[in-house]
């Protein structure tokens, strides 16, 4: 259901500026980049370790 608000209070430019947080944006982006890298990295490392273990058993 759509809500209609008439003559709602508008935050001032100063209020909006106070809520700017560029560091938070940077941190969130780098955290999501790390999340993308970790499974790939551990996937490759994990697979290599697994193959090495198999190879050690076989030899």
């Amino acid at each position, binding site marked *: *259901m*759509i*809500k*209609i*608000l*008439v*003559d*709602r209070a*508008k*935050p001032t*430019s100063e209020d*909006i*500026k106070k*809520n*700017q*947080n*560029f560091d*938070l*944006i*940077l941190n*969130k*982006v*780098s955290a*999501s*980049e790390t999340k993308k890298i970790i499974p790939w990295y551990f996937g490759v490392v994990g697979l290599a370790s697994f193959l090495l273990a198999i190879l050690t058993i076989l030899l």
Partner: protein
Amino acid sequence: MAVNLLYHQNAFRLEDELRQIEIAKKDPRQFAPLYKKYHEAIFRYIYKRVDEEEAAYDITSSVFVKALASLPRYEFRGVPFSSWLFRIAKSELYQSFRDKKAQRTVSLDSVTIVQFIDELNEDFSEEQRTLLLNSLKLLKEHQLQLIEMRFFEKRSFKEIGEIVGLTENNAKVKTFRALVKLKEIFNKTKA
């Protein structure tokens, strides 16, 4: 009609902005000036469409996270950077409605209501005002979106087209159709 200065920039400013984008692609920290420049416009766009201020700040933040993460893929194809940001804002907004993190809201002021009733060729009265507000609720989302941007936010058809992914002409035609639909609902409710 008021001119949106952030949208209608001169060639020099647009070129300067593109240079800033290229720098930010190599070093995300250099995105800060663009963030500061557009934060308020994006926040106000979102704030008008959600019922809670806190939710508007959260969605604004996720818009810039998405924009910064997608910046390496941004290419200038005639659409200003601001329109690219508004497209992300639109998509984040609808995601928050689907996730029930915010409620779809239309924010209007009394002056806009009077002007819009005049646009519908009607005389203003309290009854007409109530009728209009009820009619807006019965529009389909894509129609409401066009009415909102054109008549309540005074955006140009070119900018509307760039935000919703239509040509300028198509945006004009669809906005006109949305207005006809609204008049139809308005008159039906009146009868």
